[in-house]
């Protein structure tokens, strides 16, 4: 029982990070019908940025968090404006956009290695205590922070998308770009903001996972690829599906690693991904967007 609680908490913490990545995938897919492969490596960059602000510059945790988010937002926004929009204007085949995001992910991953280091950097703990007791089990307080903060991100994102002016126009632009344009919505700006937000939430995922796993160059690329499993499981393009899918993926993966074999851990996520694609490509939330690519 103790082991189960322990696994559920670590699983949810990991799942929270997956959710953040998957939500980025879904937002981008909804807004521009594209798939990005740079999301995972933006998480790495975010983790390193957070590390720099928090450990090297000794800024308060919350300031480091906000700064990282802002920098990542700018990175995502520029990525859309500088690369994706240029390619879309040239009317190229979708494969070039996929390849461009992969090239960007190489640049982020190897740039991070060049700027910081190729070692595993330790991320200083956020709280003064090493462990807190939950239901009689000692857990790392950072994993609770990760669960809580990713939940808060999801709720904030939900309100942002449904209650604010920018969020509403983003949804309108995603639904029908031409109609939105004729209503006076700046679709190009909105797509840029969407990519920025996707990058921002991936980057804070990096900060949350840092204290638990350490920060290293290939941290994000694995998470990024597995995040696709979460997004597809929930229904690709559905924001709420991505949240549920990501949490579920983290939970199931940790349970498989705990009870069956830790070697199956990575295999499991990809098997889930391929099974969902073949059997139920619309995911749990039955998102239909997947049909009309």
């Amino acid at each position, binding site marked *: 029982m103790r082991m189960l609680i322990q696994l559920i908490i670590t699983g949810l913490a990991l799942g929270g990070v997956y959710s953040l990545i998957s939500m980025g995938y879904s937002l981008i897919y909804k807004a521009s019908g594209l*798939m990005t492969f740079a999301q995972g490596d933006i998480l790495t960059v975010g983790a390193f940025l957070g590390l720099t602000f928090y450990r090297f510059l000794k800024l308060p945790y919350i300031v480091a968090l906000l700064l990282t988010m802002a920098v990542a937002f700018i990175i995502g926004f520029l990525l859309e404006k500088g690369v994706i929009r240029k*390619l879309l204007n040239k009317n190229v085949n*979708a*494969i070039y956009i996929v*390849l461009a995001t992969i090239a*960007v992910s190489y640049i982020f991953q190897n740039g991070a290695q*060049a700027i910081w280091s190729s070692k595993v950097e330790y991320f200083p703990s956020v709280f003064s205590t090493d462990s807190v007791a939950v239901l009689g089990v000692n857990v790392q307080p950072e994993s609770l922070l990760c669960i809580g903060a990713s939940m808060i991100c999801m709720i904030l994102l939900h309100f942002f998308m449904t209650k604010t002016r920018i969020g509403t126009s983003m949804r309108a632009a995603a639904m029908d770009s031409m109609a939105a344009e004729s209503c006076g919505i700046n679709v190009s700006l909105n797509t840029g903001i969407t990519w920025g937000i996707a990058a921002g939430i991936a980057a804070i995922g990096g900060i949350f996972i840092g204290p638990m796993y350490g920060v290293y160059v290939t941290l994000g690329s694995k998470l990024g690829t597995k995040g696709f499993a979460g997004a597809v499981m929930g229904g690709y393009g559905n924001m709420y599906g991505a949240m549920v899918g990501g949490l579920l993926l983290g939970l199931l993966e940790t349970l498989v690693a705990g009870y069956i074999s830790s070697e199956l851990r990575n295999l499991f996520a990809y098997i889930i991904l*391929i099974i969902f694609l073949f059997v139920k490509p619309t995911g749990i939330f039955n998102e239909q967007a997947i049909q009309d690519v």
Partner: protein
Amino acid sequence: MKNKKLSGNLLKCLVAVVVALLVPVLLGGSSYMCLVACFVTIYTISASGLDVLYGYSGQISMGHAAFYAIGGYGAGLLSEYLGIPLFISMFIAAAIAALIGALLAFPASKLKFHFLSLATIAFGEIIYQIVTNSPGRITGNYNGFFHSKLDIFGLKLDNNIKFYYFGLVCVVLFLIAKTMIVRSRTGRAFIAIRENTQAAEGMGVNVRKYKIIAFAVSAFFVAFAGSMYLGLVGYLHPDMYLQKQSVLFVTMMLFGGSASLAGPIIGAISIEILLEGLRTFEEYQMLIYGILLLIVIVAMPGGIVGAVKNIKAGILRRRAQKLDKEV
């Protein structure tokens, strides 16, 4: 006219073959340079195989490193445990890969572009995980897999120049096979599917069947190339089969220009030389490679063949304008 064009193409091919035959002489017999040339032959076959899938039938795969692995490990394991000579097991492994490709394509054929790439990525990762955690450690897991180099019925290909000529023969054979496939009824069906899947289906093309064939053919090509790698180097490491490798195949195919005979060859030569040249930058190799890749994608989507076509079209247009003015 058609005859003239045909003989022109034939002439180009002959010139290419003659130049290719002279490569070891031009490189001064340097063993390292010849090794690079051997890799070029291997990558040409892989990129051409992927071209059948993407360039002609319009399906994307971001996981062809899996077939590369199946070819390499398959050929190695068959000859190690069943005692089949490596040269024969190369073909068996490629056939197995084609079968696996067909099995994968059966459910995957209904997926559209992005989701097909996700499915193939997942497939690639699954194969990678199996190779690193094989049952009974038959693949040597992270230690890698050792095997003696290729010999063809007693003819030992023990140096890179010999292997290069073997690779060249393979390239010519595979390219002839590719040309025959894409010019046949099957190839026309591929192109119809690429241009418009619904219309092709309406015209009575069995879309799923031809998508499966395209997958199987490209898996055969790539797996054979993978087994050639084993024959050349005699050692396999699982990290060669990461997703990076699949992206490399796609890059080579696109850089040269897809849906052409020369494209994958040009792509394989230029990317391989580029990567070898960037080796001097050590840990910055991939960073510079990423930046160059991004610049090329943004500056000239369509690859080298596409860029040459554009330039040709530009010259023709200018000539036409001149003529217009003169008239």
